């Protein structure tokens, strides 16, 4: 009897918790909802009536989006295009190069490999401010300051974490599989691409997601490295609009922010499981 009572109380307890958490969850998405609301609002009302719905005299229709895209002297789609190019090419380059290096380091295990591995671990704890000035100058001198060449910089600065994760994973794969491939007459290159790479798939996904999220949202590195008169990415574009204009069109800015977070949210909802796993795996970086 008493047990039944506590069970009932516990059940009620859980329902209350669900309700409370549902409210908190609503509060949690509210900032994003506000972005949506304000992107349809006339500029003058964004500041004064931030929390009102965009109807009646407040409504701007799709005017903000039209204005946002052509705002300033740099079209937004160009920034979006460069953001996509830089994110995709840099992540792909990092994945392929560091997977190969990670495998090499884990398997050869020479003195050189151990030093390189330690350097990689070390690079993970170095903040960007330490190298930002010299890195941007080096990039300038070597003409690595375009969206087509900046992946080299990303590979260099992002190699540490990726190699760290690949080496850790390769060490857990039994060597016998590769030996079997070698006995069957497989050279190292073929062994890597047709035997090791498929086994590495989960780590490839984790590292890929970490790199994509980092590069897509990165502001300071591309801002300092890229030739700013010619190339911008989305974060640079948004900062540029807010920073350099005396009177900012807040409605149009919100429209741009909305356009820049929609792909992120879609990406998140489609591969949520992988993202959460990948991010948790990268927790060592910090």
């Amino acid at each position, binding site marked *: 009897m008493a047990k039944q009572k506590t069970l009932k109380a516990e059940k009620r307890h*859980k329902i209350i*918790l*669900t309700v409370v*958490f*549902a409210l908190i*969850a609503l509060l*949690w998405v509210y*900032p*994003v909802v*506000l972005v949506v609301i304000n992107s349809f609002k006339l500029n003058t009302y*964004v500041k004064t009536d*931030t*929390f009102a719905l965009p109807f009646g005299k407040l409504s701007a229709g799709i005017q903000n989006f039209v204005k946002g895209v052509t705002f300033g002297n740099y079209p937004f789609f160009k920034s979006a295009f460069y953001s996509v190019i830089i994110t995709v090419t840099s992540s792909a380059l990092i994945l392929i*190069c560091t997977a*190969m290096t990670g*495998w*090499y380091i884990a*398997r*050869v295990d020479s003195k050189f490999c151990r030093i390189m591995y330690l*350097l*990689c671990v070390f*690079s*993970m704890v*170095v*903040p*960007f*401010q*330490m*190298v930002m*000035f*010299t890195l941007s*100058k*080096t990039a300038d001198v*070597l003409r690595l300051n375009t969206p087509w060449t900046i992946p*080299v*910089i990303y*590979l*260099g*600065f992002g*190699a540490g974490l990726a190699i760290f994760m690949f080496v850790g994973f390769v060490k857990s794969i039994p*060597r016998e599989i590769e030996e079997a491939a*070698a006995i069957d007459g497989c050279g190292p290159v073929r062994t890597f691409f047709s035997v090791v790479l498929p086994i590495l798939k989960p780590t490839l996904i984790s590292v890929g997601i970490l790199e994509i*999220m980092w590069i*897509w*949202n*990165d502001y*300071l590195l591309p801002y300092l490295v890229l030739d700013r008169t010619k190339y911008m990415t989305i*974060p640079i574009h*948004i*900062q540029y609009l*807010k920073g350099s204009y005396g009177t900012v069109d807040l409605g149009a800015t919100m429209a741009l*922010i909305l356009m820049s977070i929609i792909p*992120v*949210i879609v990406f*998140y909802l489609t591969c*949520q499981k992988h993202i959460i796993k990948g991010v*948790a795996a990268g*927790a*060592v970086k*910090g």
Partner: protein
Amino acid sequence: MAIKKRLFRGRRKHSSLDSSLVKGPIRRWFPLFVGPTLLAFILGFVWPFIQGMMLSFTKFRTTSDAKFLGFAHLFDNYIKAFSDPSFLHAFWYTALFTVVSVLFINVLAFAVAYVLTQNIKGNNLFRTVFFMPNLIGGIVLGYIWSMIFDGILMSLNTSIMLETRYGFWGLIILMCWQQIGYMMIIYIAGLQAVPEDMLEAAKIDGASKWQTLRKVTIPNVMPSITICFFLTLSNGFKLFDQNLALTAGQPFVFKEDGSVVKTTEMLALNIYNTFYGQNADARGTAQAKAVLFFLLVAALGLIQLHNTRKREVQQ
């Protein structure tokens, strides 16, 4: 005898299989497997790092006109950094911000994770929602919240740019919104690894929920707590994008001696402003600040790495 010899040779050959079949041939492919990464790593990290270290002992406007300060004045840049009031202010402001944000984020994230592992309805949906802000970039986050805060403060006839405490608490709220979901994931993983039989034993022994939490659950999730603690700590110290987008150091205080203290400016932003501010002669100081900043962050990072590795060994 001959047979024995052949057998022996055969066995030897077999025992060296791994090095001759896998290790040896890979080495010949060094240029392909390691070459590109090594080259990029040197260009993108090793060389800028060494050059940055060296520049902190020189006077320079750009990397090519650096002049060594001489052994008598070796630490001039560092002395200047320490005597810069804006740097000291940024340090204390960052430290205070970090302590407060570490406390808030970890306590709240742990509480959320604890409730979500109690099998309540819809906990997968809640997880998805709470984690979502973590994917939005710092600059965008800053502008979203500056709109919200200004929307609220507008009715009080003020702005987040006008008072230091608004900027401080605003940034705390922003960081909580961004990071609670992330830390929650780590705590959930830790909580799910607490042995079921231990919890049951506590229940049978008549321990209350609070006692179970304190004496059984928390000691078991200690590794997750350490990870989250150091993660939030170094995230707090390294914060840049959100700081720049939310307040950019506003409000400024103009001192009598002509110097300016940007009251909500954190360390990373202070270093950035010293590098790219009006006074290009301050770049030596800026690089010295960057080295100090590196030492601080690296120390935190290495302790954290050490902890996670120790945990891996134990497992």
